[in-house]
């Protein structure tokens, strides 16, 4: 569904990604692990279009989007939930979800929102509330719900567990797995929380210094010797 090959990008004269190859299939949850500064967030930003690729190729279901601006990639099916969630705090829950449907061009947006509410009953109850008043966990749920409103094929999640209480982290893990299984969503998950990675992932990639250096199975994360070797944790 999502493929990137030879992807290079960075900030100004500072290169961060040195040729990343990655492929995420339909219904697959791929986690990216790695130390701070390995380039995980930069990878997601480059895929979403927030940061331009310097070279390489990104395609969504066969469509080359490398040179497209971020809003067109969103409409092509890439949904991005950044670190810190990127909620529009001054808008209501309902308004956040409505702007989320901007990527679903030509679809019935009311219908989409009703379907998304099935996964997030709490958001329906609080649809008139300002998103900025939500707790971190609720904001994370809203961010994922907003991403789904764009009817994406691919979901890019950057550290959804950051600063969130364990019970909600577990809920997010279950939800991500369900979305992949039931909707065939391709998910690329950047996460430090190993419980979440293990509960949600189909497979894991390890990044270091702007490259993918290992491919491992989620079960391998239980093996501390392997963990030390791959992540130097």
């Amino acid at each position, binding site marked *: 569904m999502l493929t990137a090959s030879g992807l290079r990008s960075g900030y100004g004269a500072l290169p961060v990604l040195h040729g990343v190859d990655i492929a995420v299939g339909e219904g697959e949850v791929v986690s990216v692990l790695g130390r701070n500064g390995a380039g995980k967030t930069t990878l997601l930003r480059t895929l979403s*279009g927030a940061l331009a690729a310097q070279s390489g190729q990104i395609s969504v279901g066969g469509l080359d989007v490398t040179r497209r601006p971020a*809003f067109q990639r969103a409409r092509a099916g890439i949904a*991005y939930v950044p670190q810190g969630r*990127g909620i529009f705090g001054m808008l209501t829950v309902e308004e956040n979800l409505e*702007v989320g449907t901007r990527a*679903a061009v030509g679809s019935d947006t009311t219908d989409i929102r009703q379907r998304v509410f099935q996964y997030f009953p709490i958001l329906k109850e609080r649809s008139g509330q300002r998103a900025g008043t939500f707790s971190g966990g609720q904001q994370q749920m809203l961010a994922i719900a907003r991403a789904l409103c764009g009817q994406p094929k691919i979901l890019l999640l950057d550290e959804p567990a950051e600063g969130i209480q364990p019970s909600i982290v577990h809920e997010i893990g279950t939800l991500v797995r369900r979305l992949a299984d039931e909707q065939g969503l391709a998910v690329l998950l950047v996460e430090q929380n190993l419980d979440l990675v293990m509960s949600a992932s189909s497979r894991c990639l390890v990044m270091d210094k702007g490259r993918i250096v290992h491919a491992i199975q989620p079960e391998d994360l239980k093996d501390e010797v392997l963990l030390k070797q791959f992540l130097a944790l």
Partner: protein
Amino acid sequence: MEVAATTLLNALTLISILALVGLGLTISFGLMNVTNLAHGEFVAIGAFSVYYIQSLGGSFWLGLMVAPLAGAAAGFILEWLILRHLYDRPVGAILATWGISLILQQSLELIFGLGAKPVVPPVDGVSDLGLITYPTYRLILISIAATTLLAVLLLLRRTGFGLDIRTVIQNREMAEAVGINTRRAFAVAFAFGAAVAGLAGALVSPLATVLPQMGVNYLANSFFVVIVGGAGSITGLLAGSSFVGGFTSILNYQISPSLAQALVLTAAIVLVRLRPNGFVPVGSRFS
């Protein structure tokens, strides 16, 4: 009592104009982080539109309809030719728009010649309001301005385009990530602000001296409106224009206009020192 009523209506006239001119500035400031020094020229273009239509034999009302279109066209071209290349360079945008401002002033002078242009008001005379009489045209001006601002408020709060704009103001990168074409939103919003400034120019044209340089005054005052009120919010815009417009009108009654202007600007500076983000800070933008 009569003095108070007249001052109030004078203040409302000034507040209306400042709010209309300030709208475009608060959009470019709050939305795009662009300091547009050519904004005053949209006011001049609006005023010259009315003059030109009248010189061709058209009515004031036709001019009033053409003015915002002329403003929008000028705004659209300026955004497309210059500004969109400078969104990442705020200082470059200041210099570029200053240059554009001079070019537009000189162009108006080249096209229409030197000297003030006459604009005939659509209605003469005064209206009896019971307590006082007040020029009818000024009452019309206040109503049109109030209607326009109300329409803008509804546009921002109730329409999909308004929601897009409020979204882009809060977080441009995220707005783009949810599928909003932020470049197009900028272009439309900028042209819209220019259109409203053109309308303001048309509305003041029977009262003001219509000159190519007339925009400069409105620009300066409107900047104070936006800074005092807080950029990027309609509530802030109304608060700022009420402060600058109200204060100026009250002082104009007591002392010479120049001294009044100086006092108002001094008060504005003190206010900005105390409330650096204006009456309505960034957090509550367009809400």
